[in-house]
């Protein structure tokens, strides 16, 4: 089983789209977790949490719609370059029905 962690940014009393990804990924026999950042969160804590979590995952993703945050991007570069993780940023596309 492989594991993915998706970092998302959410408003109060909303659920991010990551729960939809999770349903599919786990149906296929893998695992997906989410780390949700809320506006006003202390970045030092976010960094500490993510540094602790990252080694446990094969893929670490960032869901777009997030605030552009240079410190967060730097952290993702660290995960890719130093920890050797697969890193991905994802966002809405043009797929229509």
């Amino acid at each position, binding site marked *: 089983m*492989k594991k*993915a962690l998706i970092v998302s940014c959410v408003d109060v*009393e*909303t*659920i991010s*789209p*990551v*729960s*939809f*990804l*999770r*349903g*599919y*990924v*786990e*149906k*296929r026999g*893998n695992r*997906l*977790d*989410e*780390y*949700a950042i809320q506006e006003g969160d202390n970045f030092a804590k976010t960094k500490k949490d993510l540094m602790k979590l990252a080694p446990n995952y*094969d*893929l670490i*993703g*960032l869901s*777009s*719609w*997030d*605030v*552009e945050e240079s410190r967060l*991007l*730097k952290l*993702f*570069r660290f995960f*890719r370059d130093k920890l050797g993780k*697969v*890193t*991905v*940023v*994802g*966002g*809405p*596309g*043009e*797929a*229509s*029905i």
Partner: protein
Amino acid sequence: MEVREKPRSDFQYTVVGPGEYFIDEIFQGHKFPTFYTEKRLAALEFKLTDGYKDLVKTWKKVSLSLKTFEGCYWGKCYFCTYNESYLNKQKSLSQERANILIKTMNGINKTLTKLNSDLSVSFYFSHASIKRKNLRHMIEALNQYKKGNYSWVSFMRPEMWVKKHLADIGATKGIIDIGFEIISYRDVVNKGASVKEHVSLALAARENNVPVYGEFMYGIPKTDIKDMLYYLFGMCRIKHTLLCVALGQLWVEDCTYYSKNPDEFDITLYDVAPLTNYGQTEEEEEEEEDPKYKSGFAAVSGFTLKKGQRKWIGMNKKFLQAMEVVLEGKPETWEYYPDYMEKMEKSEALKIAHTFFPKEKELSYEIADHVWSIS
């Protein structure tokens, strides 16, 4: 964050579109380019992530965005970037897909209310507007399959055909989110609608118990006192139909009709800056560190008027002050109301207009009569 155009150098992969297939396939060892566009539709497989399970138990309401389809079939508004950064066309939703969407909503609602039976669940559809055929499919699916007391919100263009569907929308706990932009006797932003459509649709929605979320803007080029008075009376006329109001200053972005045709609007483009509004107090403005904000209107709107700017800004400020009275508080972005506001009589609206635009009494009477004649 925009991921649509090119790979992001901070990441190994940039994926545009539904990400579940990418994650699954990369775990299987498939190779992908650094920039990948997923054309498949979202799988709509929902399983609540662990972090939310405890949170949901403490919440009174929850909102989820549901991937329906994208785009806007109009795509002509002067301020809009849909022509460039989003599709300005919209494919049809199949009945089969609509059925899947509603069944997905049922499942999510069941999952969440099992954790918290008092939870109020609402779904926000992802599309920028919904055309008639797609709405028919959604209503058909809602009527046939909806289980549970959840509500749903769809962006809707202010068009008269929507009125025919309001009874069904209301019966299935639908909410319509309308980009009114401005209510005037003419169509200054090329929305394809004016006071008649706006007022008539909002009143009909209220009659059918369909809440309206209204999105509005101010500081629009080429608007004059007649536009602003129509706007004021229009807001007074429909205030009791609104359960949410977003009122923000127009911010001209790149790739919009405004930015491509500044001469047509007698404006000079300025460096764009994040949105703010006149509702800020002077103290708050002084606290702002970015010196751009201190340069005033242009830094927020992204443009200046070639002539008459001072008077025009004054007119907009008066309008906003009047809006604070009409909307019973300082206008904010996305102001949700716990209940409908009281219906306003024409005489009360006239008093507000006379207070803030005392030199325009004659025009006020004329416009008020017109706006109150619309049903």
